[in-house]
């Protein structure tokens, strides 16, 4: 099946998505990867405030290239999700409901996805020149000192992805 979806996704929208479905996402997502995950989780564990709102959010594992002068976005694509596995269950339990990345996830992540009816989407790596067409805007919003590893806000328009783990924990 194919779905055009607008973020944030309601629970009933997530429930209808099944492994292998193709989705086109529109809306705002957080772009973040390794070091930002580590920091956010450290803050959560210490009970300190975090710089982004996680409730019903979508995270895209990404570290984009810088845009050329006069352009809004550079090449954009997913980075390997499994590196974020140790941090993902705590982020899901704090409100993250949609994740975009590439590759497989471990058992703990699959369990958290099932428990909170979240959804894991993948998009191919190495097609970043194509994927940039579906990103309207990108802004650094937190942890500026991390450079390409900072937290970004991305505005997606019909961004293509495939369902890799659905709310029932079924995976490809």
């Amino acid at each position, binding site marked *: 099946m194919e779905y055009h979806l607008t973020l944030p996704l309601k629970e009933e929208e997530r429930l209808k998505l099944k492994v*292998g479905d*193709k989705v086109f996402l529109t809306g705002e997502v957080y772009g973040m990867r390794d*070091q930002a995950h580590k920091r956010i989780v450290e803050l959560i564990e210490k009970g300190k405030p975090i710089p982004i709102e996680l409730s019903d959010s979508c995270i895209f594992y*990404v*570290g*984009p*290239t*810088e*845009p*050329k002068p006069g352009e809004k976005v*550079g*090449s*954009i*694509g997913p*980075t*390997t*999700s*499994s590196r974020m596995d140790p941090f993902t269950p705590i982020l899901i339990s704090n409100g993250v409901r949609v994740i975009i990345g*590439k*590759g*497989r996830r471990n058992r703990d992540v699959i369990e958290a996805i099932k428990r909170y009816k979240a959804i894991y989407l*993948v*998009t*191919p*790596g*190495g*097609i*970043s*020149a*194509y*994927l*940039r*067409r579906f990103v309207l805007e990108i802004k650094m919003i937190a942890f500026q000192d991390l*450079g*390409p*590893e900072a937290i970004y806000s991305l505005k997606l328009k019909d961004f*293509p992805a*495939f369902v*890799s783990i659905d709310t029932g924990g079924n995976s*490809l």
Partner: protein
Amino acid sequence: MRTLNTIILADYIEKLCREINYKLNKRVLSLIEESAQKESSSIGREVFSQMFTSYKIAEEEKTPLCQDTGMVSVFLDIGQEVLLEGIPIEEAINMGVRRAYTSSFFRSSIVRDPIAKRENTMDNTPSIIHTRFGKGEEVKIDILIKGFGSENATALKMFPPTATRKDIEEFLLEVVREKGPNACPPLFIGMGIGGTADYALKLAKEALLDLKPMDEWEAHLLERVNSLNIGPAGLGGDITAIYVKTRVFPTHIAGLPVAININCHILRIGSAVI
């Protein structure tokens, strides 16, 4: 004896870094096209079509093939009749990388201290440099730009000397099964067999620099990898890998090192002879 100022290396490296981040080598592209013909799953065919669209946009719009513009490895074959003068070779090469990455808005992906601070060098240097000396008056540059989604899928196993081809095959399948889906399939797989542990890893990288035709065993390895049904982007399908290439070297009576170096479908290689 021919005299060469090392600064010319900076110019060549800069040009190659730019070219191969935007455009696939012809041989690489034709191998991917051949593989795409053999893909029967609809999701796999769709991924191939996204790949070809992306390659075209990257070349036309001069935007990087991947946001991970990688760590640069340079393999230099230096003819011993060449007298190199000027700044040190390493400096010249890093100068070329720095110029390409900062002026083309490629992502700076290198951190200075790998453990504690992980502070970004902001110009994608240093690069990894291998040198070899041979006959002649030329300097040959081979360059490989690799992202870490695939570099992290590297594996090394020190087999006992009594191991067989079959054992090596099983190791390859185990590695691809476990790490292949993360490495942006369809893959190019390089294998280094023999030498020492470090040398086997280097051979595995070098195996993919010239993409010579596969021999019978390599074709068989490819077929077995493609029976894993990982498929393009790991979404299932016939084409998990596009190519498997081995490079062998004499080794010690007590061992059989085998290194596997996996590349994503955008195998970013280039070469030049000065």
